[in-house]
C-alpha cells in the first residue's frame, strides 16, 4: 500500500507534472516566477491548500454527490466549498498567525482561481482514489507545481543579465523556457506506469 502511495507521489511530481504536462497554474507560473523566494512561498501555500482541499473534495464527492446521486452538481459543489474554505482559512490565519499570514497566507486567495486546484479535485474523483491516496495526490501535485515554478524562477533570475530579443522579453521567453523544461520532463515519461 505504501509502495503505491510513493509511486503516485513520484508520478504526480515528476511525470504528470501539473504545470509542464497538464498546463495548470500558468497564470501564476508566468506572473510570480521572477523571484525565487516568492515562487517558493507561493508553491508551498498552493501545496498547503491542495493537501487540505483533496480530502474535503473526496468527502464531498463520496458523502454528498455519490450518496444522493447528483453527478451534475460536482463542479458547483467543489468550487463553492473551495472558494469559501479559502476565504475562511485566510481570515483565520490573518487573525491568529499574522507572521504566517505575511509569508504564506497572502497566497491563499489565489487558490480560488487556480486551475490546478480544481483540476486536482476532479482528477482524484475521476481516478476513484481512496482518501489517503487523494491526499498524497494533492500533496504531490502541489510539490510538482512548486518544483516547476522554482526551476523557472531561478532561470528567470539568471535571465536578468542576459540579452533577450526585444519582442520576447517577459512572458515570451518564459514560455519558450517552459517549452524546453516540458521537453526535459517528457523524457521522464514512462518511468512509472501508475494510475
Amino acid at each position: 500500500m505504501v509502495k503505491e502511495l510513493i509511486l503516485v507521489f513520484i508520478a504526480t511530481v515528476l511525470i504528470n507534472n501539473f504545470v509542464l504536462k497538464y498546463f495548470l497554474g500558468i497564470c501564476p507560473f508566468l506572473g510570480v516566477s521572477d523571484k525565487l523566494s516568492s515562487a517558493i512561498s507561493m508553491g508551498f501555500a498552493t501545496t498547503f491548500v491542495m493537501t487540505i482541499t483533496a480530502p474535503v473534495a473526496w468527502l464531498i464527492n463520496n458523502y454528498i454527490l455519490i450518496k444522493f446521486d447528483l453527478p451534475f452538481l460536482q463542479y458547483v459543489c467543489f468550487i463553492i466549498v473551495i472558494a469559501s474554505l479559502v476565504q475562511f482559512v485566510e481570515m483565520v490565519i490573518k487573525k491568529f498567525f499574522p507572521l504566517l499570514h505575511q509569508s504564506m497566507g497572502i497566497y491563499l486567495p489565489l487558490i480560488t482561481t487556480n486551475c490546478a486546484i480544481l483540476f486536482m479535485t476532479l482528477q482524484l474523483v475521476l481516478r476513484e482514489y481512496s482518501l489517503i491516496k487523494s491526499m498524497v495526490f494533492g500533496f504531490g501535485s502541489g510539490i510538482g507545481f512548486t518544483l516547476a515554478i522554482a526551476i523557472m524562477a531561478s532561470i528567470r533570475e539568471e535571465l536578468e543579465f542576459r540579452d533577450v530579443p526585444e519582442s520576447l522579453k517577459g512572458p515570451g521567453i518564459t514560455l519558450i523556457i517552459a517549452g524546453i523544461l516540458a521537453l526535459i520532463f517528457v523524457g521522464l515519461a514512462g518511468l512509472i506506469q501508475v494510475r
Partner: protein
Amino acid sequence: MRKINVLFSDFIKGLWQENPIFRLLIGMCPTLAVTSQVKNGLAMGLATTFTLLASSTIISIFRNFIPKEVRIPSYIVIIATFVTIVSLFLKANFPEISKELGPYVPLIIVNCLILGRQEAFASKNPTHRAIADALGMGIGFTLSLIALSSVREVLGMGTLLGHQVIFGNFRPWIIMLTPPGAFLTLGLLLGLVNIINKAVKNRKKKKQ
C-alpha cells in the same frame, strides 16, 4: 451617438489592444491544453465565450444585490452553473469533442479571464457595456485559440480542420502535439504579436 461608440470601443478593445491571450496574458491554461486541433480550440473558444457572455449578463444585473463579503463565492457559483450547462450540452450533442476537451471544460470556471472579467468589469458597469465587453473578450479569446491551434495542427498533423493541407513527403512535427510544442508555439506567437504591435506603433508615430 456617444453611447454607441463606447459600446463599440469596449468590443473592439477585446479583439486586439486587450486581447486576453496575447496582450493581457490571462486564461492561458486551456489555451495551451486544447489547441492541438482547430476543432477543439474552436469548441473551447465558443464554450468560454458563451459562459463569459451569460455570466457577465447575470452578474451585471445582480451586481448591487450580492453583498461584498460573499462576492467571490457567489460569482463563482454562477459561472460554475453555466459551465456545467455547457459541459452537459457538449456531452449530449457533441460527444467526441466533449471527450477530447475532457478535463479542460470545467477549468473554464477558474479561467482567470472569466472571473477577472466579471470582477473588473461586469460588477462595476451597466449590463449593456458588460455584454459588449464580454463579447469582445470572448471573440478575441476564440480568435487567438484558432490562430494557435491552426499553427499547431498544420505543423503537427499536416491537416487543417481535418482536411489534408500539406502534401508531398511532409513528415509532421510530432512535437507540436505535445506540451513542449504548445509552450514553444505560444511563446513565439507572443513575440510575433509584439513585433506587429511595435511596427503599427512606429507607423502611427511617423504619420503624426
